[in-house]
């Protein structure tokens, strides 16, 4: 398997792209989807494998800088990071790359270079196309479609994985359908949520011929440095007064602010999490009853909920459950945090489950928010639950 390096996508693909198979990132115009191919390239190469990057619309020197912007140092990968320069010839510039396509508008020229590069690799690797659509623009639709078939067959011979960034400009219906459905073993749609303007981005699997395709759609963001992150727009943290909600939000977040007065939250906590391929915005509610109207306001459109409880304060558990009602959290993924485990008399998660009579499908996890103990485990659990929702 060659991993794509895209968070969640490798899980969905049961590990990645099998050797000898091909994958196309099918990108809605205007969405910064080329980063998918870049990330797959860098991930492969930094794992000690070979990667060939076919540059068709950017100067190779600029390409290295583009990788750098994400914190992906291509120099460190040495000669495992190989560029086929199908750009310089277009603007009549010199090239310092080993593989140079002298006439990028001639698909045979390109094919020859790509085949040569594939042969030269010392083991299975990945061949990533910066922009298949640019090649199609230069060489023609049917010529390019034929060439893709040839490249994919050649890759099969050498056990390389083929990865194409393809921007779905309005080519002929046939061409688009071919790319989406026929020509590659798998296709990932990289789309934009648009109304007036594009304001959100997602990916999902259209096709993967080695497995049953899960019907999943994942929001993502692109961060520099970092790359593609699965994006969860809203996670809610609620619970009784003084349970440790604000502490929990800050423990999870790379940066966070709280609107507090005299140590109690009067409006909200807002934090931003960037953790292991995930990015999320997290909102903590106040706990005191007099702020319940604010709690209601804050709780719309959450994708998952943490209920934070002070494990030493069983008297407030009912209030905790009540807050799940106020926030209308039932039906959403919920993880209960058995906080303050460091204190004398803290109840265990199982004791709390009994007292709350919570069904076993709601995880209750121990934590010490002041030390960040257990908070990331809880985050991973909730994220997994959120990603399971269709």
């Amino acid at each position: 398997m060659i991993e794509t390096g895209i968070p969640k996508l490798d899980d969905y693909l049961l590990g990645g792209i099998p050797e000898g198979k091909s994958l196309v990132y099918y990108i809605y115009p205007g969405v910064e989807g080329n980063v998918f191919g870049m990330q797959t390239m860098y991930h492969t190469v930094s794992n000690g494998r070979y990667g060939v990057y076919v540059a068709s619309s950017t100067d190779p020197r600029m390409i290295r800088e583009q990788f750098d912007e994400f914190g992906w140092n291509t120099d460190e990968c040495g000669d495992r990071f190989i560029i086929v320069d199908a750009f310089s010839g277009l603007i009549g510039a010199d090239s310092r790359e080993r593989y140079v396509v002298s006439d990028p508008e001639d698909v045979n020229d390109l094919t020859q270079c790509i085949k040569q590069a594939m042969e030269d690799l010392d083991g299975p690797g990945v061949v990533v196309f910066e922009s298949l659509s640019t090649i199609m623009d230069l060489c023609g639709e049917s010529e390019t479609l034929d060439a893709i078939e040839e490249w994919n067959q050649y890759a099969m011979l050498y056990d390389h994985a083929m990865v194409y960034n393809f921007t779905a400009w309005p080519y002929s219906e046939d061409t688009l359908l071919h790319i989406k459905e026929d020509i590659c073993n798998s296709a990932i749609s990289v789309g934009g949520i648009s109304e007036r303007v594009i304001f959100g981005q997602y990916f999902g699997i259209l096709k993967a011929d080695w497995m049953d395709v899960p019907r999943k759609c994942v929001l993502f963001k692109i961060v520099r440095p970092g790359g593609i992150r699965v994006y969860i727009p809203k996670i809610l943290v609620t619970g009784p007064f003084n349970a440790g909600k604000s502490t929990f939000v800050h423990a999870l977040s790379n940066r966070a602010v709280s609107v507090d007065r005299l140590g109690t939250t009067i409006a909200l906590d807002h934090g931003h999490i960037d953790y292991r391929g995930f990015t999320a915005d997290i909102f903590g509610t106040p706990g005191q009853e007099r702020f319940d109207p604010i709690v209601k306001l804050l709780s719309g459109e959450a994708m998952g909920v943490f209920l934070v409880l002070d494990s030493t304060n069983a008297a407030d558990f009912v209030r905790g459950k009540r807050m799940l009602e106020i926030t209308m959290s039932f039906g959403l993924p919920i993880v209960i945090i058995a906080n303050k485990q460091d204190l004398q008399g803290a109840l265990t998660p199982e004791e709390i489950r009994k007292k709350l009579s919570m069904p076993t499908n709601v995880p209750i996890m121990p934590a010490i928010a002041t030390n960040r103990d257990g908070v990331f485990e809880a985050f991973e659990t909730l994220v997994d639950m959120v990603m399971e929702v269709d």
Partner: protein
Amino acid sequence: MTYNFGISRLDELIGDIGGGTNIMVIGPPMSGKDDIINIVAYHGLIDNNAAVIVSTREPGTNVLEWFGHHDTNIPMDHIGIVDCVTRTLGFGAPDTENIKMASSPVDLTGIGVKISQFFEHFWMDLQLRKTRLCINSLSTILMYSNLPTVFRFLHVFTGRIKAANALGVYVIEDGMHDDKTIVTLKQLFDGMIEIREGEAGYQIRAVGLTPKPTPWFDYEIDGVNIILRG
């Protein structure tokens, strides 16, 4: 949601231009098209519009300077420039608040991404509901990519202009392209601003925005104003 060019006599004749309109500006070299397009953007900026400018001949910093030079009071954070020049000159310039770098004029995919990101930023973050997109110029883009490619690109982005109720303005050099190119591209636009060389200098008129073309006017560019005569 309506727009004006900021070219007084023409505006009077044309009346308000509806949101979602795409207009071609076509004229000979040296006729001041760069200024004209900047002026159209400028008049949007002083009316609380956002301006997204794709620059294929001037580095983004020069374009930004034009605005700063003519009026220090305009909201600079409403300007977004897609610079297709600087990186082709071999400079590894990073993006800034106002300027996003495209790899080259070949990289229509990248240009499209940057335009979309500015649109999102102005609409979502700054809550600006009127945006002007100025592409200066299609002629450079056509030097690097063939007509079908450019047509596909424009097909998508004139559509986005409609969806966003924005105003799109696209510059073309007269005399640089064959008739087929011009005829093909014209299908995508709702109207044109035409410039020609007259006896006493350049003349301007609008076509397709009124039942009949407006008369030709002699004009002169004075800072951020286009003064029409005749």
